[in-house]
């Protein structure tokens, strides 16, 4: 898969977080589609079938991020999903990342090198 055909879906309610991700991803040859809510994220997911998904944990509704992951997994989808979290947002301790169907958690602000490495490893260019 060539990089430029690689579509990454980023979901966050903060326009600047999306903007930062877009700058980093596009500068490295990826395409990015954005969504501001879990609901919009699901819609975009169905439209664009992205290869990699980044979703914020704490959006308007507290569990929006986790619910999105559950919904995505119900669609029997295998795309890697990483959750964005900021300091102090604790994941529900009773559920492990893998149980939720998450591939991992990234702390905000996301280190661009780490992000790029993960994407590369996960979508196996």
């Amino acid at each position, binding site marked *: 898969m060539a990089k430029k055909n690689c579509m990454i879906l980023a979901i966050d309610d903060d326009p600047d977080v999306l*903007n930062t991700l877009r700058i980093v991803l596009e500068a490295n040859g990826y395409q990015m589609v954005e969504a*501001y809510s879990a609901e919009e994220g699901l819609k975009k997911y169905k439209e664009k079938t992205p290869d990699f998904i980044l979703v914020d944990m704490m959006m308007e509704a507290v569990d929006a991020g986790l619910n999105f992951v559950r919904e995505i997994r119900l669609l029997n989808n295998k795309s890697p999903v990483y959750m964005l979290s900021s300091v*102090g947002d604790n994941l529900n301790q009773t559920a492990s990342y893998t149980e939720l169907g998450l591939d991992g958690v990234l702390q905000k602000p996301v280190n*661009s090198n780490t992000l790029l490495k993960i994407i590369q490893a996960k979508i196996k260019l």
Partner: protein
Amino acid sequence: MAEIFKVLIVDDEPGMRSGVSRILNDFTVSLPDIKSEIKFQVIEAETAESGLTIIESQRPDILFLDNKLPGMSGLELLNIIAEKKIDILTVMITAYASLDTAVEATKNGAYDFLAKPFSPAEIKHMVRKACNRIVYKRQAKNLAEERKRVRFQFISVLAHELKSPLAAIQGYLNIVSDRVLGNELSVYDNVINRSLIRLDGMKKLIFDLLDMTRIESDQRRREFAQVNLCELAQKSIEASALIAKQQNIAINLDVRDDVVMQGDHTEIEIILNNLISNAVKYNKPDGKVDIKIAADDKKVVISVSDTGIGLKEDEIGKLFKDFVRIKNEQTRNILGSGLGLSTVKKLAQLYNGDISVKSEFTKGSCFTVELLKNSQEVLRDESSGNNILFKAD
């Protein structure tokens, strides 16, 4: 449905125990503060030692405790209860002459004492008093817990509101630091601009937060003076003029230049600033803001209407709460602390007034604040008892 309070009587005289049991078994207490009636289940113990076992296993609410007991004394049991921090309301039963014991007992945590011999009416009276006390303590505890919960929630939301701009700015600075877009500085203009805007937003949040907590805690000394609303409104319009100009929004002010009220300058300014800046921020390009300030003998009515994005029915209900921001496509890029309107509401209430809103989604909103012209006088009258119309809180 009745609530059952457990009463333990520790006394070595069987007659005393059965007497108390008999009296309380058909006794009912109803209190104005709770809906259900209180009935009693009496448990008897002959010694302090067996009483302690019952206290630990059955957790009675009220304890009638004789002092002179075989083995451990009543006062000794009272000490153990205090040491173990057991939540029980103790009434000492003492011989008529031994006032010393009673004093000693109250020092050690007993609620009250009852001197022997006592009548059924006396013990009923004591039990009623004890129930009142228990219910009051329970309510105070619930209130304290509720406060802690509200505080925790407030701090969590505040932390989230402060972390978001920090993360955004840090992300942008990382882009510059890593030269993600190359070495030319000008390509980072947008990134730097957005960082500065988020810093401004953060500063505004901190200011708003300080305003709000000062108002809430009464820490700020309120300086009452004659406030000219026309002058203040013009000042607030100037503060929003730059953004209004960028969006080509016209601001009209309709007020007689002699409208005055007794108020704290800063407080009235916060009200006007919030209303006017909101009307500009949530407007549309080429929109309009109409500010109308009217007054009669008693009150001042400030209404600010805009031709902006408007509100949905369900959004109006939560609008005046702390940290509420209406999030949708239109408001996404508008910065705000979510404290402005809740602060305006709190301020309006300080002037025996309130805030209300009428809005049509996508068409615009009109916020109306009513303030009493002489709220201080009302307060004074109130403390001298002449005015019960405007009761504080």
